């Protein structure tokens, strides 16, 4: 990943790193909810819910739909990109290790250490 992507990803993860915010996100992932509806379901004040939703929105995880006078929050489908970025970084690591392993075998006919670094 580029530094820019890493920053985006880190922001997404950081946004979900707060237990209350993760609860808020989990709730709206089940069904779109307003600030008041989220506050009713958690031991959290409305202003605090608003603040958590703002952080989630800035991290690209949450979208706001205005329906009449109601503002409903729902997951941002682009947040799914998190899974993609995760798999991207997984193959970076995997292919680098594959290359090292294949080249060690080609060079010496002996496998490199298969132990992972701690």
């Amino acid at each position: 990943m580029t530094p820019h992507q890493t920053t985006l990803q880190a922001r997404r993860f950081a946004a979900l790193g707060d237990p209350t915010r993760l609860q808020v996100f989990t709730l709206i992932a089940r069904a779109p909810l307003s600030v008041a509806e989220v506050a009713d379901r958690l031991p959290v004040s409305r202003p605090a819910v608003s603040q958590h939703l703002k952080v989630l929105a800035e991290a690209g995880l949450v979208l706001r739909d205005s329906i009449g006078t109601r503002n409903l929050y729902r997951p941002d489908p682009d947040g799914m990109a998190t899974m993609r970025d995760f798999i991207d970084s997984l193959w970076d690591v995997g292919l680098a290790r594959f290359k090292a392993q294949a080249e060690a075998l080609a060079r010496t006919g002996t496998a490199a250490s298969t132990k992972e670094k701690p």
Partner: protein
Amino acid sequence: MRSITRAAEQAVRKSVTVAAPIALAFEVFTGRIETWWPMASHHIGQADCAAVVIEPRAGGRWYERGVNGIECVWGQVLVWEAPRRVVLVWQLSAQWQFDPLLHTEVDVRFTAIDDRTTRVDLEHRGLEAYGADAMAMRDAFASPNGWNGMLDHYAQVAGSARG
């Protein structure tokens, strides 16, 4: 540099050039996964992973075997054209669990540049399945192993990338 990911471009593409003959590169990739896969952090069984096995035929299984002998399926073999191409169905969810409804594909092509050098092009596609299957993702979000689990995985990947 790739811009912010959009649903329309949900494939991961990687290329790596390996100083190894094509037959060896293919054999290491498909037959000795446990020697290079970041296994300590990325396996799905409860027990430590003893091996990752790709059965060498179309329709074969792709699974891990724990040190306790229990096998956990990752997916299946879609295309087997040794030593030039293998396509695997990867059916691990965001929760790192086998999900028969999830279908993503890992397409790996091997090209001999000369007798001792091979280019490997990997495409992991169909990742929009993670977004398209709203039910599955909703469960993933709601699960304690969902996003939190991914956080742990990510930290481990980042750690082994530095290592």
